[in-house]
């Protein structure tokens, strides 16, 4: 900071007389110079220079302004530090004043006359002090030199000290001026936070599940011991990753790999990050040294304010292990939505009782993919109050809905016909509860249970009718009638006049472009059949909508209704 000499106590030094002839000469020169005189008269001048020494004679306004600015600087300095000090040219403290906060070093008057390295700081080695002393010998400024000491009560105290050399007007070194701060609370808080961080790490390391924490870009910030051990021996999608790698990028690159669909995992994690989904679960099989294992990946949003975003855990599962580990969750699912699947309800009581021992309640969330085309079927599902779309994929990008399964049917019907892989994508479109059964177990039960066989063949036929009708419908009927059919079918299955669906989603379902959906939806809205805003669809006139639907709706519905009687 440049120090205005006129403001310091030694004011006379600058505005004083340095011999009458010189002063007279100055006045004469000023009067003779019209531009200088004019500038002084109009208040545009801060200082007049003494022609003998070059020292400034400040005009009153400038003097006042500089005094104020110095006072301002002074109070800002006081705000930003605990103590201000000055040292002489031998680096001995000449003054130190400031806060009284019980940190004895800088509050003790005994500091006067001592050098910084004479004080009882215990964190600086001889070498550290040598470096510091050579710095101040060069008259260099120093910032935030960190020092540690113990107070009278034996408690540890941390300080930072900053200093800047001061020179007189002739450029001679006069000493140092600087500030000191007590940063004990900061350092202690940091230490405590590190300790708790350590506890969290060792707690995570003690868990059997493989856990990692991702930041908002998908980079692995931290992984636990189980993860690291597994990563060292495996190369399953995403799991052979160490800290610093990007999990999402690895999943994206993996694409669809046998039974692990990397793209689906990446999409699910991104949804969790965006807060659209909580949590995301994905089950997959993986070859381990001890044989083939089933795993469940769970992605949960991290509710911290740091950079961490998502916690990923991989847990070994099996039907029974899962039931043992998540009994509460499954209880909850079962209680919330008593399973009301019509295929199961049609079974004789005895057989149902036997079947139900092998059934496992699950909660499905919007966007869950039960199968991808070509996936081996590992579970079959009896939907309760959820809704599953069967989509066929064309050229890897275009999707078209060919069937809709709700509580009237079963997902994975191919298995009942002896086909072990899925030809369609089964996508959860309405969240809710379902019962599922492991594929092998299902095939055994099917052999032993003629009534289940009968029910499922009947349902397979209904679904076939739905497929053929949908195929014809997609070819011959206008988008508006198809949309009305689709909304009516959805309504029948979720048994509610309100549901949430975006135009993009509807476009996929109907195999048309988004603009086609927008036009059709506006037409239905104009006829006061539906209302929609931001993806919330409300059916206003159920009968009107049924009538607006193409004939396919009534054909399929009649078949289903008849089968119930």
């Amino acid at each position, binding site marked *: 900071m*440049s*120090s*205005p000499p006129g403001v310091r106590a030694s004011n006379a030094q600058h505005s004083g007389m340095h011999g009458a002839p010189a002063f007279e000469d100055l006045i004469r020169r000023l009067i003779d110079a019209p531009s*200088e005189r004019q*500038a002084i008269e109009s208040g*545009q001048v*801060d200082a007049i220079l003494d022609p003998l020494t*070059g020292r400034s004679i400040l005009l009153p306004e*400038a003097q006042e302004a500089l005094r104020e600015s110095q006072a301002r600087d002074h109070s800002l300095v006081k705000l930003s530090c605990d103590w201000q000090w000055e040292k002489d040219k031998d680096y001995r403290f000449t003054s130190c004043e400031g806060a009284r906060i019980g940190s004895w070093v800088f509050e003790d008057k005994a500091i006067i006359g001592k050098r910084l390295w004479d004080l009882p700081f215990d964190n600086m080695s001889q070498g550290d002090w040598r470096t510091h002393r050579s710095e101040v010998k060069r008259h260099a400024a120093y910032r935030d030199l960190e020092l540690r000491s113990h107070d009278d009560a034996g408690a540890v105290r941390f300080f930072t000290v900053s200093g800047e050399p001061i020179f007189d007007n002739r450029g001679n070194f006069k000493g140092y001026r600087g500030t000191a701060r007590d940063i004990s609370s900061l350092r202690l808080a940091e230490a405590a936070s590190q300790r708790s961080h350590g506890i969290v790490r060792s707690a995570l390391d003690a868990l059997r599940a493989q856990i990692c924490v991702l930041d908002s870009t998908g980079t692995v910030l931290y992984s636990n011991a189980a993860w690291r051990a597994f990563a060292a021996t495996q190369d399953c999608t995403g799991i052979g990753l160490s800290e610093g790698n990007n999990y999402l990028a690895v999943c994206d690159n993996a694409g669809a790999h046998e039974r692990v669909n990397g793209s689906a995992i990446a999409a699910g994690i991104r949804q969790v990050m965006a807060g659209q989904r909580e949590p995301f679960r994905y089950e997959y099989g993986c070859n381990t040294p001890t044989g083939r294992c089933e795993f469940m990946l769970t992605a949960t949003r991290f509710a911290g304010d740091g950079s961490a975003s998502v916690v990923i855990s991989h847990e070994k599962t099996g039907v029974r292990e899962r039931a043992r580990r998540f009994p509460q969750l499954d209880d909850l699912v079962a209680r919330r939505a008593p399973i009301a699947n019509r295929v199961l309800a049609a079974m004789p009581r005895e057989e149902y009782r036997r079947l139900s021992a092998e059934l496992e309640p699950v909660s499905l969330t919007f966007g869950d993919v039960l199968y991808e085309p070509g996936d081996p079927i590992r579970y079959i599902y009896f939907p309760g109050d959820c809704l599953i779309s069967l989509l066929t994929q064309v050229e890897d990008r275009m999707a078209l809905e060919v069937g809709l399964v709700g509580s009237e049917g079963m997902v994975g019907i191919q298995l009942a016909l002896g086909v072990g892989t899925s030809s369609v994508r089964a996508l959860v479109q309405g969240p809710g509860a379902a019962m599922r059964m492991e594929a092998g177990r299902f095939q055994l039960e099917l052999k032993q249970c003629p009534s289940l066989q009968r029910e499922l063949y009947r349902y397979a036929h209904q679904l076939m009718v739905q497929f053929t009708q949908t195929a014809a419908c997609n070819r011959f009927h206008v988008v508006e009638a198809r949309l009305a059919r689709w909304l009516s079918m959805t309504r029948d299955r979720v048994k509610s006049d309100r549901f949430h669906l975006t135009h993009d989603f509807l476009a996929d379902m109907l195999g048309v472009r988004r603009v086609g959906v927008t036009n059709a939806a506006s037409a239905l809205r104009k006829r006061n059949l539906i209302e929609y805003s931001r993806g919330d669809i409300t059916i206003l006139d159920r009968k009107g909508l049924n009538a607006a639907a193409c004939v396919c709706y009534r054909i399929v519905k009649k078949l289903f209704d008849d089968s119930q009687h």
Partner: protein
Amino acid sequence: MRRKLVRDKASRPGVETVVVIRLYVSGNAPNSMRAIANLEAICREYLKDTYKLEIVDVFEQPIRALADGVLVTPSLAKVSPAPAASVVGNLSDRSSVLLALGIEGASR
């Protein structure tokens, strides 16, 4: 705050004549601060990259100010190209600054 800035914006020497100017100020006294702001605005507008401005704080370099014949602060000196010229005061009078810097046809 050290008031010893040297702005060297002459990135293409030889393409245009570089105007070398020097402004003498007294720390951050009000007229000195105003003069810096006024001068920088004028240079940005009229000289773009073709000037070299040195700000001399007379608190720090009293002898130099004296040697340069400075009587009061703030004051502006055009060092080159010739002819040398000077303006005294906080430089709020644009036309006299432009005149001293030899910027022609600028009557704003």
